[in-house]
């Protein structure tokens, strides 16, 4: 047995500063969100799919030998082959390239519409929620009235009048699309503005502008980003819907909606002409939806059910 001597009972010096030291790296809010998101396999798979889709939509049209507008009447309605991976359409145009040009349009419309909704919605909802009272009442009434007008009807009306094209679609989609975002931001503002950190900033002399955009909006970013990520698929859906009823981009450019619309009558004999665009629309919207769901769970784990 070991001899117990006096020096075994020396008091250990306690360094108070040591006990205060933070051993683990501190996680910022977004690092924490990212950590939770990484654990969600479905959301990560969707994210990877989205990134691949974006990269492919940018790169593929540059590297292929075919282009989306050259017609080849001798080689129309061809089955998928080595030369034309997704076959050809009724004018002999290569479906593979057309799909990726369509991807550009869908992504452009989805991302641009979501971004514009974000800007208008955050400003509108931020101002309404921050000032409250009469301002809030008037601003939200305007939003309510606009919201009562059926979304797709407005979009269709505008598309009938304006020149067909990607820009028009984006304008038409955002004209009432920002209201959802404005409502979310307003709700967040109302919750946040009575908290102490706002009072602190106010007493330090921060003006309304600084309070809204430096203090309140960053704290509401979670719900804003989630809403944003779910706006993208609904914009992509609306674009394909419009193209499908013949109000989309003008020929020879084709979006996925136009291609499905053209492929529909030929479904019986040339099913691939409908199948590929339909598959791409569905999987893309699915991926954005699943990613948005995963992001919502990651931003606010209490919401997970």
């Amino acid at each position: 047995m070991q001899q117990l001597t006096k020096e075994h009972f020396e008091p250990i010096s306690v360094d108070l500063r040591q006990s205060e030291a933070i051993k683990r790296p501190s996680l910022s809010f977004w690092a924490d969100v990212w950590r939770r998101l990484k654990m969600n396999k479905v959301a990560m798979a969707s994210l990877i799919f989205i990134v691949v889709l974006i990269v492919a939509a940018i790169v593929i049209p540059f590297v292929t030998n075919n282009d989306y507008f050259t017609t080849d009447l001798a080689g129309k309605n061809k089955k998928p082959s080595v030369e034309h991976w997704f076959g050809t359409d009724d004018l002999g145009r290569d479906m593979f390239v057309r799909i990726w040009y369509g991807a550009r349009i869908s992504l452009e419309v989805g991302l641009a519409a979501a971004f514009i909704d974000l800007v208008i919605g955050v400003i509108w909802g931020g101002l309404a929620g921050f000032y409250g009272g009469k301002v809030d009442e008037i601003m939200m009434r305007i939003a309510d009235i606009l919201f009562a007008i059926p979304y797709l009807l407005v979009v269709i009306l505008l598309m009938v009048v304006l020149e067909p094209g990607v820009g028009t679609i984006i304008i038409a989609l955002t004209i009432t699309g920002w209201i959802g975002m404005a409502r979310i931001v307003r709700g967040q503002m109302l919750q946040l503005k009575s908290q102490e950190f706002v009072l602190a900033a106010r007493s330090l002399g921060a003006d309304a502008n600084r309070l809204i955009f430096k203090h309140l909006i960053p704290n509401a970013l979670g719900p804003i980003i989630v809403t944003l990520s779910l706006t993208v698929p609904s914009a992509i859906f609306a674009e394909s819907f419009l193209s499908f009823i013949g109000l989309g981009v003008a020929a020879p450019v084709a979006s996925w909606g136009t291609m499905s619309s053209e492929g529909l009558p030929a479904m019986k004999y040339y099913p691939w002409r409908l199948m590929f665009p339909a598959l791409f629309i569905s999987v893309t919207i699915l991926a954005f939806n699943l990613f948005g769901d995963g992001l919502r769970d990651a931003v606010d784990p209490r919401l997970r059910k």
Partner: protein
Amino acid sequence: MIRYLGKRIIFMLISLFLIVTATFFIMKAVPGGPFTSEKNVPDEIKAALEAKYKLNLPMHEQYFNYLKGVVTWDLGPSFTEKSSTVNEMISRGFPVSAHLGAQALLLAIFGGIILGVIAALKHNKWQDYSAMVIAVLGLSVPGFILASFYQYFFSIKWGLLPIAKWEGFEYTILPSLALAASPMAFIARLTRSNMIEVLGQDYIKTARAKGLHTMTITIKHAIRNALLPVITYLGPLIANILTGAFVIERIFGVPGLGREFVLSITNRDYTVIMGTTVFYSIILVVMILIVDVAYTLVDPRIKLADAGRE
């Protein structure tokens, strides 16, 4: 209650007025009149045509005429289908659309609730997962794609159901299924999350402790409370089904108002576009009002004054 209702109706009328005004001026902003497409029309005939349709009047008079027409429910003639008026088109197409829509609505509500309740009762079991996979797919696959796949498999490949037209019950099955898919998925998700929340509450535990049968608890105690949020979704649901019908009717060749509307868009038949837009808006706005009022009646906990906003 009456004050709230009055306020809601006033806002509804403002919305409708804005819709009618916006529709009118948007349609007038289109370059070229309805007769510019006809080739080489002599000026006199063109003037006579415009006089017949009162297009030679100054803009504000045309606008007041149109407002008067909407109030007295006379939406004017169709420019491309010479023999019929917009009113006739609506009364011809709307019953078909309403039939299809009602069928899809019922399917969406009952299908969605059943899926959602099953998923909640079997939370985190395979039934739950498969119900939610169906729901996510239903939300992600656009109706027109679903419709064409139904046609491909049920009609072309297997020959089970007629591919198009509108001549009896079996013709209504595929369009209703296609139309109901996305609202059904939404309702299923909504019901599921509400049911899970309700099932975790104390009064359900009490009911269970009393020894009540699971069936009784689910039907008598849980579903009632879980369904309230579903009622708020009914307004958007009706909107969803109405606009969804535009493409579904086109794909299945259903002679409804939705197809008429899409046709009028491709033909640039401006009075029909205006008339149907106004008609659809009225239906939607009124439906949403009814749903909101019904919601406050069903759940007395909801304060009337707050029900208007979210």
